[in-house]
């Protein structure tokens, strides 16, 4: 199998790392070589977070270079746009339309662009905008928006549905499993037939 590159981008506290963990464990279960990379340290303090997930027959580098991502998974609008140059031609963008103000915007020093969605669409690649927060809420908790995103991406990968479900059961605390399975399926349905 050719290497699949998934770049996840969001804000500290959005559950980007848990989502990465679901991808890596599913790929391992499917007997693929997997590498995952992120830089942490100051991310808890509201900074940008990216995580790189790569799987295939043999993976060397743990990071995805600009222009090499098959999937750009944005957990927030602006962070999606910030990483758009990482997408490869013919790649797929799946992003949560929610907005989180950076501190520079909150403090009135900078402005949050009005046309983020338009700029993302202008990339000309297949783009799926998802109301992750709304679907998370529908599943029972807006914090499950990260698993909604995992669900959406899963429908583009030829890995069995049961594997994803099994890993969500394994990785989440028991009392949050049902809610997150619901979030996963809502995400999976949200991109179907579009």
């Amino acid at each position, binding site marked *: 199998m050719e290497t699949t590159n998934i770049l996840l981008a969001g804000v500290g506290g959005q559950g980007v790392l848990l989502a990465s963990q679901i991808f890596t464990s599913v790929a391992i279960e499917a007997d693929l070589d997997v590498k995952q990379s992120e830089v942490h340290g100051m991310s808890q303090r509201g900074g940008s977070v990216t995580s790189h997930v790569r799987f295939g027959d043999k993976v060397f580098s743990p990071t995805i270079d600009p222009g090499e991502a098959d999937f750009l998974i944005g957990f927030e609008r*602006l962070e999606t746009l910030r990483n758009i140059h990482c997408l490869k031609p013919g790649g797929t963008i799946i992003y949560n339309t929610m907005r989180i103000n*950076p501190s520079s915007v909150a403090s009135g020093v900078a402005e949050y662009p009005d046309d983020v969605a338009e700029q993302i669409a202008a990339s000309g690649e297949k783009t799926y905008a998802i109301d992750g927060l709304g679907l998370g809420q529908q599943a029972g908790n807006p914090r499950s928006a990260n698993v909604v995103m995992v669900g959406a991406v899963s429908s583009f990968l030829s890995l069995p549905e049961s594997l994803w479900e099994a890993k969500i059961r394994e990785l989440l605390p028991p009392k949050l499993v049902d809610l997150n399975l619901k979030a996963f399926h809502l995400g999976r349905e949200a991109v179907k037939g579009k």
Partner: protein
Amino acid sequence: MSKKKAILSGNEAIARGVWEAGVRLASAYPGTPSTEILENVKNYKDIYSEWAPNEKVALEVGIGSSIAGARTLVTMKHVGVNVAADPLFTFSYTGVKGGLILVSADDPAMHSSQNEQDNRNYGRFAKIPVIEPSDSQECKDFVAVALDLSEEFDTPVMYRTTTRTSHSKSMVTLGERTEQSGKIELEKNMPKYTMLPVSAKKRHPLVEERIVKLKEYAETTPLNRVEYHDTKIGVITNGISYQYVREALPEASVLKLGLTYPLPENKIKEFAAKVDQLMIVEEGDPFFEDQIKAMGVAVDHGKDLFPLIGEFSVAFIKKQVRGIAVELKDAAADLPGRPPAFCPGCSHRGIFTILKKLKVFVSGDIGCYTLGALPPISAMHSCICMGASISMGHGMAKVVEQSDDMSQKVVSVIGDSTFFHSGMTSLLNCIYNKSNSVAMILDNRTTGMTGGQENPGSGRTLDGEEAISADIPALVKAFGIKNVVKIDPYNLVDIEEKMKAALASDEMVVVVVEAPCVLRYRISHPPLKVDPGKCTGCKQCLKVSCNALSLEEQGDDSFVVIDPNMCAGCGICAQVCKFDAIGK
């Protein structure tokens, strides 16, 4: 049955490796990207592990354990080795009894550091071997090799990772623990362990002989591996760069160095002779390149193509070697950045709001409060290394003429963990030498920036057991400082009045701020609300730089709103509001 596999970060794999290799004691001071090693070691109950107050202490604890015969792990970030360098250089002379590895986690590209130093240089400088893994499997497996080598050659071993090897995850085949048979007992051996001139003079020649023997070992160790493919291009590389090279240049032959000091001269010459073009791909300093050139080997490309600043990548190596660049979509321009900021509710916010207002020079230190240097607060004016704030502030105050000009007055700001690390001696110097500076100790009872680790003030040890909670005001008083002032960081009037009084004093004043970290201890009060009728949209509250606040514009009207999910109810924004528009 197939062996157990797991996906581990490099740091998790090192922890597993030391457990498998029979390590008995581990000590460290937290520092990105090394912190998670000890956080994982603590889960292996066969190993005694602890946070030390600084890296020098951590290494000295490790030396004691090694001399007693136990296999030992000491970890730190790259700049931590500077702090531990004093014991390290002489420990190189005494050698070990139980094997000891010192993990130096370097940070090329400075993701979370104040400099980009390449600690392979320490191997050469301290005359100890350096081992570098390139993925998590090697992070685990090389530990046992390093400990065997440490014992066989009677030397501490530097185990160098970088951010990418420490923080990326890959598959690891796990093994089981092997207990070491060597006796752990104190053995009185003055000529080996007591470094006086008389004994050190006898140890130094042994150190030089050891390097010669290690060079022979380097020729045959499986840590150094040649992978011949096409011989048009031959690459000598190490660590994470090996992964990039294999992906970028799959046809190239590679000499992968796992033992990166001392170098295998014959192996390098043999490899160089077999390839048409020799390239050296190493992040950081031209550490191999300079030595290989000194061997008389012709190097076709090294630092001319692969610079000493920052990190490499697959695409970068392709571009430098082949001249092929990937066509990129335009990176979105002029997007507002998302730098880290003080958490909502953080006790540092009010302190820096007032320090800014007072227009003083803030001599800063390393921790979450260093974020006080960033806009819009922008109220920290120097920061060099752990513990330097108080001593630097003292130096400034000694030479700058004292007047009423607030911009020429200095306030040194340091956190609790950094104070325990190396600020205490600075403060002792201040009182001893009659300083008239002001030092603030921001005591939030945790080592915050690295993720909230325990420290001598937090009341718990690494494994969560109850411990002392060092009393900073009592400690400061014991130094002989009379003026110890406590401030409530959530009361701006209190901060301003007491800071003004401290700055007017002609004697040393130490201000202690006791307020636990809201993130670490999950402290939250009911969120505040803005009365849109009273809010004029003046943006004064936004200057305290809180992510819970934002400006909402409706037509010509603008007012501030508070996100109830983020607000911790600390009240700093309400105190700066001139229109009484923010309340419960």
